[in-house]
Structure formats: structure tokens, C-alpha cells
């Protein structure tokens, strides 16, 4: 099976029902997306498929064959950071950070599709992403600082 992740094409020798999250983390060494619940209820595993955020934990590999996948690692790096990555550091927008990969990826898609963002819209877009440390308001500030 072939998938394209962060611009690179990969041929994989995996069973087709293998969760995309397991492929990313175990076969491709891309560990930013996290396992949180396995049911698509917490958002820690969020990645972009053709620009749309999806839950990689309950997405079988076969369903994304030939599609364009982007993970947190593909958004930016210290030399070329995504504005959200810079903003999350500037706002110190986390505590443990386990939820942050999924949140930044979700927010990147939001910034791309929504020209007119406000506090309530950001929160609504993140309601599928859980944060237990209570960094919600810092995260919303960081995202709004990248808007416009």
C-alpha cells in the first residue's frame, strides 16, 4: 500500500486494517500524533488528510491509500516553523503538551478554511480536542494570534 505523508511517498507492507495512527508512529517514526482513546473522541491523534482533520486512531490504512497526509512534523520545524508553532511557544500554550499535536493540526486546517475567526469559533472547532491540564485559554489565544 502507498501513502503520501508530509510530501514523501511511502510503500508499506501492513495489513490494510492497520490504524493509520499505528502506521505513522510505528512504521514511519512520526510520533507527534498521539494515541488517546482509540475511538475518535479526544483528538490527540488528529492529522490532515487532503487538508481535512481526521482521527488517525480509527482510520484504517486502506481508506487513505493514495491520499495526502500531513502530521504536526509536516507543518513546520524549528528552522521553518508554522505560525501556530511559534504562537504556541509565545503563549506558553500547554502544560503536558500531549494534546497539542492534534490541536495544532486541527487549528491549521481551521485557519486555512475560515477567513473570519473569533473566540467562539475557535472553541467550537476545538470541541473535539480534549485538554486535561486546563491550557484551553492559552491555546485559543495562540490560535487567534495567527489569524489575519
Amino acid at each position, binding site marked *: 500500500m502507498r501513502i503520501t505523508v508530509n510530501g514523501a511517498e511511502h510503500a508499506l507492507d*501492513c*495489513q490494510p486494517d*492497520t*490504524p493509520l495512527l*499505528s502506521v505513522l*508512529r*510505528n512504521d514511519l*517514526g*512520526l*510520533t*507527534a500524533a*498521539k*494515541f*488517546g*482513546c*482509540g*475511538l475518535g*473522541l*479526544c483528538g*490527540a491523534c488528529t492529522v490532515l488528510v487532503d487538508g481535512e482533520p481526521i482521527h488517525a486512531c480509527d482510520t484504517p490504512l486502506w481508506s487513505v491509500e493514495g491520499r495526502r497526509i500531513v*502530521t*504536526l*512534523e509536516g507543518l*513546520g*520545524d*524549528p528552522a521553518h*516553523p508554522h505560525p*501556530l*508553532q511559534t504562537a*504556541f*511557544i509565545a503563549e*506558553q500554550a*500547554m*502544560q*503536558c*503538551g*500531549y*494534546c*497539542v*499535536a492534534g490541536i*495544532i493540526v486541527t487549528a491549521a486546517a481551521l485557519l486555512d478554511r475560515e477567513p473570519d475567526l473569533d473566540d*467562539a469559533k*475557535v*472553541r*467550537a472547532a*476545538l*470541541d473535539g*480536542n*480534549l*485538554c*486535561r*491540564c*486546563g*491550557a*484551553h*485559554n*492559552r*491555546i*485559543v489565544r495562540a490560535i487567534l494570534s495567527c489569524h489575519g
Partner: protein
Amino acid sequence: MADPALVTVQPDGTILVRSGKVELGQGILTALAQIVADELGVDLDRIRMLPARTDLSPNEGYTAGSMSVQQSGAALREACARLRVAASAEHVAVVGRSVPRIDLPGKVYGTRRYLHDLRFPGQLFGRVLRPPSRGAHLTDLDEAPVRDVAGVVAVVHSGDVVGVMADREDAAGRALAVLEKVTTWTTSPTLPDEHHLADYLTSAPADDHVLHNSGDPPTATTLLARFSRGYLAHASIAPSCAIAQWDNGTLTVWSHTQGVYPLRAELARWFGLALADVRVEHVEGAGCYGHNAADDVAGDAALLARAVPGRPVQVVWSRQDELGWAPFGPAMVTDVAVELHAEGMIRHWRQEIWSNGHSGRPSSPANPPLLAALHEGRPAVASTDPPVQVGGGSARNAVPGYDLPGLTVVSHVLREMPLRTSALRSLGAHLNVYAIESIMDELAERAAVDPIEYRLRLLADPRARAVLERVASASGWDTTPGRGVGYARYKNTGAYCAVVAEVEAVTTVRVTRLTIAVDVGQVVNPDGVRNQIEGGALQSVSWTTKEQVRFDRHDVTSRTWTDYPILTFSEAPPVQVELIDRPECPSSGAGEAAGGPTAAAIGNAVRAALGVSVRALPLTPSNIIAAMP
């Protein structure tokens, strides 16, 4: 206590720091690095904080109780005082400044490895099948179909523990699904009726402790009120994880435990090893809010890995097991009985608490077994309370921080434990402060005095008064319906914290704003303290308005985020934190200070909005309706 090896200087000038405290997402390594930088007069970027491990780090017990800056900070200061280091000529002090967290860049770029992300050469992926209910025992297991799953390396069976290891994580998942189908269990109901939990707690066999008794005994009861909460889950976003490896009779474990040394002692005891033959190394996991399943999963990994010597085995729990089998914050009942003088002043205050113990940590005095050891057949041990000298457990913050002429505090710690309980952030302070502050508002109303003014009349401590006065001014305090206040000094010895909550309440409660004033003594990292206070407050909003572990007579039923919902982004209110810096006072921890006062402020705001005191938590529609006359 200080060990010279705590701080060492490398030939290139790098300073290596080995604290015994561990990063739990709270930013402690940054705060400790700031302390070292100032003590040595060097730039922060020369300092490298190393993870705690039992063969190299000082034994600083648990990272718990909001004690790390006091304990490890003091040890590091002492160690630094004995070092000769070439200081930077123009060192600018960093203690007291909001320096950025040292661990954040790796987290936003996805390059920092959590324990869950480690992949060692030859690593296997282990999964344990938990019993289908609390009282279940394994009667039959057909291993053959599990061994037939592609990638399966070994099946482990010991008592009621069954586990599987595979060379790929997805194969381990498939094998676990098969394992579930080939096991047969007996089962029997062992849990109390969740709809009559308070009755159970107050009637179960218990050890009774009189923790405080001062002033004249009461002669009458003017006001008597019963408060309660259910069990609370840690509900960290990551399920617990560990890696273990056996080599020639020695055991190495990588864990996100709060205490590498106590975990080592427990593993050595369980497997009959010398302490020197067990090494536990800390690797960061997701946010930790107390004694979660980190130690249990370390036991799982050690038990499985023993069957495959020489190979590292990583075990990750499922979300369902994390919400169902990790230790819970205990369900509690707190009664408050107040006697007033004829003039309306408080004559006597009695606080009485029923709860399971708040500590079932490894190597605590009763030696409670890790979960897999329990399921292997080791007898259950009911959790106990930490000593009063370190803040207690059930009775944490049960002593009101007010000047009271007579006070009695009694706790009843259950001798049986239907659901495993242990320390969850703020321990008993969540319900005790809720109860005390609720009564304070009722007394203020009887006296026809503003709630903040009423508290100030009973507070001589200037630091206590200052947080209340600050929160009043910062929140624009008035007695508009839907506003409430809560105050406590954490553990009666730690940080001072006052909260004003604003709510919209009809049958559901929506917290719309929190204003918090806090005094943690000397502030090492102002933004770090703000982050901890905000986080502690929002977690308390979640506990207080939404959370309750659900169960039937057989097992926990709240096993997913649908059944155990936590605060969402849309529900999180704005939080304004006012820091009162006191460089002349020793630092207190910030992590747990806001939990009790935030809960109390919300409860009082609901009372101000609806005119009823809701004394059963969480503040759900059914509990609110039940409280209405």
C-alpha cells in the same frame, strides 16, 4: 540531604542537574533550572535537566503535594553553594522571571519523545486483558487462537492476569481482541449502589480519627449540612504506559511514575529482587494529576517482560481501562455542624468526613499491591491517608482557615475499598473547602453581611486577607446574582488562594468567568504559576460541574469520554490570575491551590443564582433539581 552529584559541571561548561523530581507537565524542570542558574550565576541555556533514575538521582520520594520547588529547590541551592563555577560576568537573575518552559519547543515540533513514543531495538508491544468486572475470576483460557495471530510472540497467564506480546503494535491489538473471546470468567457483584453512595460511605466499616479538637465542646447545633462527591477519574489524555526489560535476573523499567524510588521498591518486593537489581528511569508521559495508573502499568510491563528476557516490552493501557481501572480520587461525604452564639457569632465548628484513603501509592505503609499483583492473587489493601503533618488526605483542608473559638475535625477512613482509590490533585481539599465555604456563605447571609466582608472579619492573617481583598477588586466584586467567592490556604500551610466565579445557572451550570488571587510566596516563574493556577482552576470547573465515575454492582461503566465527559474548549471560562509576589516568603507549590477555592466559588455562585445550596457534587441538573425545595 543534598548530594554533591546533584549538580555537576561538564568540561564544556554545561551544568548537568539531576533532581529527584520529575516533569509531569507542570513545568518543574524549568523552575528548578532557574534556581540553579541564579545560584551559580550562569545563563539558563548552560543548564541541562536530566531525568530522575534510581541509579543516578537523589531519592526525593514522590513528585507530589505541591512540594517540589520547596524540597528540590532547597536541595539544589545547597548543592550549588558547594560548587565552584565560572559565573557569567553579566548574569541577570532569572528567578522571578517568566522564562519560557524548556520542554515546549520539542512538544510543538513533535520531536520530544514521550514514553509512549519510545521504540527500542527489538521492542515488543504488550497488552493485558483486564477482568470483565471487579469480582471476576478467570476459569478458562484457550491460548491457541491467540498464539495463531500473526506477530504474537508470547502469551502470559498468572492468576487472573492474562496478557499478550507481539512484534507490532497493531498485532498486539488484534491479539487482545482474540484473547477477550477465548477467556471465561466467573463474576459476582462487589460494588455498592451508586445511587446511595453517601449511605454506603457513612455506614461502611471505618477507622475513626479525631484530628482536631479545640475550644469548648458544642452544646447545640444551629446549622447542619451534608456535602458529598462521587469518585473522580484522573482522565489524563494519554492512557498509562511503561516499558520493562529483564536481563540476567535484573529489571529495568521506564515509567512516568511520580516516584522512581518507591516504584523500584515495590517491583523488587513483588519479584523478589534486590533493590540494586531493579532500575527505574523516568520518562515523561501526559499530564499527571496524582497517583494514576503509571505504577500499575509498570507492573504489567515487568510481569509480561519476564517471559521474554532480553527484550523490552512496552505496555499501553486502553482508554477504557484507564478510565475504569486506574485508582480514583475517593468518593467523599463531609458533614459540617455549626453552633452559633445568640449574637450570631460562631461558637463551635465540627467537620466530619467519610472517605476511602487518599493514598494507595507503592511502598506506602500498608504496601498496597499494583493492579496486576492484585489480580495475581495478592490480598487487597485498603488505601490510607497521608499523615496530617504532610497535609492529610480525607481531612486535607478540613480545618477551616478562619479564627474559630471551637473546632472538632473527625475523619472516618473506610477499611474496605470497593473501588481502588488514591491521591488525586488536592485530595480531600476539593470537597472540604467546598463544604466550608458553602457554610461560610450561609452564615454570611444569616448575618446579613457581604460574603467577602464576613470572611475578612474571621481572618487575621494578612496574607489571607490580601488574596480576598485582591480578588474582590480584580473581579469588581458585588453581590450580583450568579457570583460567588471561595477561599482557602492549601493544606493550611501552602499557597493562599481566593476565587470569584461567575455562573449562568438554570438547571445546568455554565461557569462564565473566574478571577483568582494567589500568594505562593516567592514566585520563581510568574507565567509558570499562572499556568498552574489556570489549569488547576479549569480542572476543578470540570470536576465540580461535570465529573463522576459511574458504576453498577459489577464494574465501572464510565469507560469512554462519552460516559466520562470532561470540560471542553467551549465550556472553559476565561480565567484572570492576580499574583501577589512575596519575595521575602518561601515558595509554595501552585499546582493544587486553586482546586478547592474554585469549586467553592462555583457552588456559592450557583447558590447566589438559584437560591439553593447544592451540596452533592457534581453540579449536574439532577443534583441541582434534587437540592431544590
